[in-house]
């Protein structure tokens, strides 16, 4: 269909299909995406909806799971299950946006430094060194003392810190590919540098970039979870799996109310694992060592 027969991607696709873990990972990831998209339909309540105790004026906090509240209620009386579903949207959106930003920046910088080398290379690699040494956590904590970090600040923070691994990867690949005969041949055919980068180099380094995107997504999810858990990520009332885990900071909740923190923990673990399986599967599909 989309993939040309007998092309590199055709063979890769067939190899991927044979890898059971990768296929399972793909289905799980797709399932999560579908659930996230359909959250408004699947969710019984609004995520910010507060519930009151029967006939009283008090919030129904920490209620155990029941038929009305499949996963009980949290510290403010909101339905945990609904928050979980909407949280999926938020977590995944943050992760995917951050990964897109880091991939685009990293790829462009990697291509340019790898291909042109010398001063540009030296300059950007020093920037990479600076960015890597930068403590994201402190940055976000500092920002949060001034204002509540909006969701876009969180996305930018994660994205702007993660592009370095992509850049290094792309640069390494460009260096490897640059000396191959078909690049010299393209030069001999009269192709311009831009044409060579886009038509010859980029298609041949796409495979490792794709694998890196999966890893980056998983890492972004975990980063969001950590940041939100510490209170400097996604802010209330917006639900995210990370800030749902924040409740677990209270010993009482941790010990006696597992329905509040186990679900977000488990789904995070599951999704990250599924994405890693897909990433491994892609890596093996693109580069089989027979």
């Amino acid at each position, binding site marked *: 269909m989309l993939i040309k027969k*007998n092309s590199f991607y055709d063979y890769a696709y067939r190899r991927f299909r044979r890898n059971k873990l990768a296929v399972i990972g793909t289905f799980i990831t797709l399932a999560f995406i579908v659930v996230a998209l359909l959250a408004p339909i699947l969710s019984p309540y609004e995520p910010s909806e507060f519930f009151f105790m029967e006939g009283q004026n008090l919030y129904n906090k920490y209620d155990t799971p029941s038929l009305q509240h499949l996963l009980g209620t949290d510290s403010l009386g909101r339905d945990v299950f609904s928050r979980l579903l909407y949280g999926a949207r938020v977590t995944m959106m943050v992760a995917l946006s951050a990964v897109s930003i880091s991939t685009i920046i990293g790829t462009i910088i990697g291509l340019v430094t790898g291909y042109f080398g010398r001063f540009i290379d030296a300059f950007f690699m020093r920037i990479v060194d600076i960015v890597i040494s930068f403590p994201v956590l402190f940055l976000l904590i500092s920002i949060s003392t001034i204002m509540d970090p909006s969701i876009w600040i969180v996305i930018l923070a994660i994205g702007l810190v993660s592009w370095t691994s992509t850049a290094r990867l792309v640069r390494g690949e460009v260096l490897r590919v640059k000396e191959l005969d078909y690049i010299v041949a393209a030069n001999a055919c009269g192709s311009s540098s831009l044409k060579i980068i886009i*038509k010859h180099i980029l298609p041949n380094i796409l495979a490792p970039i794709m694998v890196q995107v999966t890893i980056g997504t998983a890492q972004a999810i975990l980063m969001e979870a950590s940041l939100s858990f510490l209170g400097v990520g996604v802010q209330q009332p917006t639900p995210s799996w990370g800030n749902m885990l924040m409740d677990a900071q209270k010993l009482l909740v941790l010990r006696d109310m597992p329905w509040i923190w186990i679900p977000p923990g488990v789904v995070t673990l599951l999704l990250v694992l599924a994405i890693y399986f897909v990433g491994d599967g892609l890596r093996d599909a693109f580069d089989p060592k027979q």
Partner: protein
Amino acid sequence: MPDTPLLVVENLNKHFLLHKSMKKEHAVYVKAVNNVSFTVNEGETLGIVGESGCGKSTLGRTLLRLLEPTGGEVYFEGKRISDYTTNEMRSLRERMQYIFQDPYSSMNPKMTIRDIVSEPLENFRKDMSSEQREERVAELLELVGLSREAMTRYPHEFSGGQRQRIVIARGIALNPRLLICDESVSALDVSVQAQIINLLQELKQKLSLTYLFISHDLRVVKFISDRIMVLYLGEVMEIAPSSTLFADPKHPYTRSLIGSISKGDPRHRDERKILEGEIPNPMNAPKGCPFSSRCPVAFERCHIENPTLRTVGKDHVAACLLLSQPMQSDTKTGENE
């Protein structure tokens, strides 16, 4: 054939700097191509032959400015191209093309054959529409003995010989005048080699091409070339018409090289001559004549003075002190094998 040679090379140098040094004398260079001079006439095939470190591949790439020369001049169609800018060189690519040694690595594995062969057309024939380009690609593929269906397939689906045909098709796409073939048949099976050699001969006739044929295989070079240039450690040892080179080789290295080749006949197996010694590392080239460390007839001056190319016969030049001394070469004739 017109009188002006198509390609004139004068004292071409390509030196690679290995170690920089504050003192110029201490800088270490690899003289991959050193003082190479020769001409190529239109319509002929000049064979370039030599062993490792002789610089033949570096020479090919430097001629096309795929590598920058460090000295000397190159004239193509009468114009001095060694100081052309990158843009001027780009426009020259239409008329000078290069066929790489390994057909597989010189094709982008992610591109279809159609895209690969049409790339030069896209760059230089902007007047052609994409249908016209596709038709031209089909024409080229058929010219090299492949069917037009090959267009939609990928390089890995083809055998070595077929891949070689594809890169040849790409090389002739723009109707170049000069084609540099770098070890174009070396990686092929014997039975396929002959097919490609025949193809190259056929194309030369049909398209009035001029070839620079680089190879380490003397037999193939002899078959396909009109004249042959022998290189050793980046320098020219001898240039002569093919038949003359084999009938009457003057340079001791050429004689040793030809002597080392198997006769291909079990009855003549004892005729194979052994040339002792190792090929020197280009970083440690011998002083004087580069061949002096292994030459069976070298004398003291050979280790001090590097001989220049002198005429030793009709259309025949060689760089050897023995040959440029008319008296000594007379007395030494008896000793030359």
